[in-house]
């Protein structure tokens, strides 16, 4: 999948919160039709990196290139305008509204003609487009008019992902999409991620679950204590290699273990 044109390239990005160096000269990238898993221990900087790409944090140093051009992402709207959609772990769905209403929340279709004056909703148009979108993703929900609160966790995740596609993004960032899901629901979500790849989207997935990561990812990027600690092609890599990079036991570069004991993090006795 390396042959794919790079969509998003992060070059030496650093971010510091007070005394904490959350990101330290991180390089990262995702190409068209590529699924990149971002793994690492708690506090490794995964969320900070994703939030930096999504425009919630602005980086202290480094550059971001999108579609080959250097860009500045200082607000979430900047990321959205570029074509970067983010699905956060808490999904941010309204449980009291149905699937159509949630997918179009904040960007509702408005009727034409005199009804436009009252900003009348074009329900039929929204329902039609939502059904189209969901069926193109083969999302499994009982009805687009189901209240989101009645759906299972996996279905809610799929709705949240479908919503992020409404603005025709090129890159989708998924924060822990399979956390707290059962086995069949996890499978649904992983299949959905596969279909995003088929559409030619660049997908970045944060996950703790290495089995899931190996199932869906083309490339696995390991962060450790704010630094890139490994970049593996999923094919031909074993879980042991990745775990070693995550924990800093050997991995690539002999400095990892030394760094870990220097900073006294992650290796503390129970």
């Amino acid at each position, binding site marked *: 999948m390396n042959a794919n044109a790079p969509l998003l390239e992060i070059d030496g990005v650093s971010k510091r919160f007070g005394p904490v160096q959350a990101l330290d000269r991180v390089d990262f990238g995702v190409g068209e039709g590529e699924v990149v898993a971002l793994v690492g221990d708690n506090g490794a900087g995964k969320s900070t990196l994703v939030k930096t790409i999504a425009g919630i944090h602005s980086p202290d140093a480094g550059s971001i290139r999108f579609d080959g051009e250097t860009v500045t992402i200082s607000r979430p709207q900047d990321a959205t305008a570029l074509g970067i959609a983010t699905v956060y772990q808490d*999904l*941010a*769905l*309204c*449980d*009291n*509204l149905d699937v159509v*209403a949630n997918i179009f*929340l*904040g*960007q*509702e279709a*408005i009727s034409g003609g005199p009804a436009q004056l*009252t*900003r*009348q*909703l*074009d*329900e*039929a*148009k929204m*329902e*039609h487009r*939502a*059904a189209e979108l*969901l*069926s193109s993703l*083969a*999302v*499994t*929900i*009982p*009805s*687009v*008019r189901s*209240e989101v*609160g*009645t759906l*299972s966790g996996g279905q809610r995740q799929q709705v949240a992902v479908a919503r992020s596609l409404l603005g025709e993004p090129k890159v989708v960032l998924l924060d822990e999409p399979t956390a707290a899901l059962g086995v069949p629901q996890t499978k*649904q979500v992983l*299949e959905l991620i596969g279909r995003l790849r088929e559409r030619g989207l660049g997908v970045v997935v944060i996950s703790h679950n290495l089995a899931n990561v190996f199932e869906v990812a083309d490339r696995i990027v390991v962060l450790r204590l704010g630094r890139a600690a490994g970049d593996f092609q999923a094919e031909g890599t074993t879980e042991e290699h990745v775990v070693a990079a995550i924990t800093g036991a050997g991995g690539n570069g002999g400095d990892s273990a030394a760094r870990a004991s220097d900073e006294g993090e992650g290796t503390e006795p129970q």
Partner: protein
Amino acid sequence: MSAAESATPAAGQPQDEAGAGAGALRRFVQGDLASLRVVLGLAVIWAIFQFENDRFLSAENLTNLMLQITAVGLISIGIVFVLLLGEIDLSVGAVSGLAAAVMAVLNVQHGWSPYLAILVAVLVGMAIGLLQGSVFSRFGVPSFVVTLAGLLAWQGALLQVLGSTGSININDPKITGLANTFYSDAVGWVIAVVVIAGYAGVLLAGYRSRIAHGLTGESVTPLLVRVTLVAVVTLVAVAVLNSDRGVPLALLILLAFVAGFEYVAKRTRFGRHVFAVGGSAEAARRAGIGVDKIRIAVFALSGTMAAIGGILAASRLLAVNQSSGGSELLLLAIAGPVIAGTSLFGGRGAVWTALLGALVIGSIANGMDLLALSSAVKFMVTGGVLLLAVIVDAIARKERQAVGRV
């Protein structure tokens, strides 16, 4: 997986026809069919009062009932929107009294034209709502505290505006006519036809729009049932009203506001955003909805409707006095929609619950008056009904949570 099967989810049909009965029962318990529950409750209430006093269901008394519920129903419309946000507005009673007093003072003491006096009174209500909504959203003060402070302050303002007389009689025919105009039989029937045709037209337009977008799943039968139901209720109501004084203007005003704001709540972007903020303010904010703007607009709407309700109440009473908008008006205006199925917890409800709720509460008050029960009994019964409604709302919410719905 059943990908192919769910690839056509647009049908909007119930998932399992076989389990429809059980599904209806479940929805009944979970509060989705609250309206049916309330209609049954209303039927029971009417049967009991009719049994105790056979004048209860007479045309004259039913016409009186319609006039009695107008002011409360109008105020409740604003309350519905506030409840949809999951907030509360305790100032609506006081605001209705103050707005009526402003109208009376301008019209009677300063000789303003009735239209201008009414307009200013409505604007006063709107401005109060804007102020309270802004304080609530800007400073994050709980809405019940802001509006409780408002309740006291606007009651004081009412006394101030009325001045030393403490009471102003209204005799401008334009104002008194609001609650005391009745239409002839012929006009009544024309209104009935317009209402039925309008309702059928709205449903037909929605159906055709769905067809145009290739959504053919919905069958025509439920639409026909709904039109028939509305037609029967409308025709019976007009027949009953015509056999007394005729269709009252006040009722038309109430129905027009209910229909208009039902449209706003269910069919417009503003209404959708109100539901979204009530369901999850955080999700709404992340979707780019201006949560503060929605909140301020809803409180402004609540103040506006309170003022309009107050004007109708003054028109019916032919006066404004120190107790205008006081007493149990506030609690009845909040209790009505809750009894009829609008949740106190936000995100669930409908504008027509303002009408249905006012009808239930109005019927109880009217019936107890006919039976000449004391105020003591009336207060206790009304309090009991409100408590019952809130308990039913809370149970419905728990049931929803038990099955993973919030």
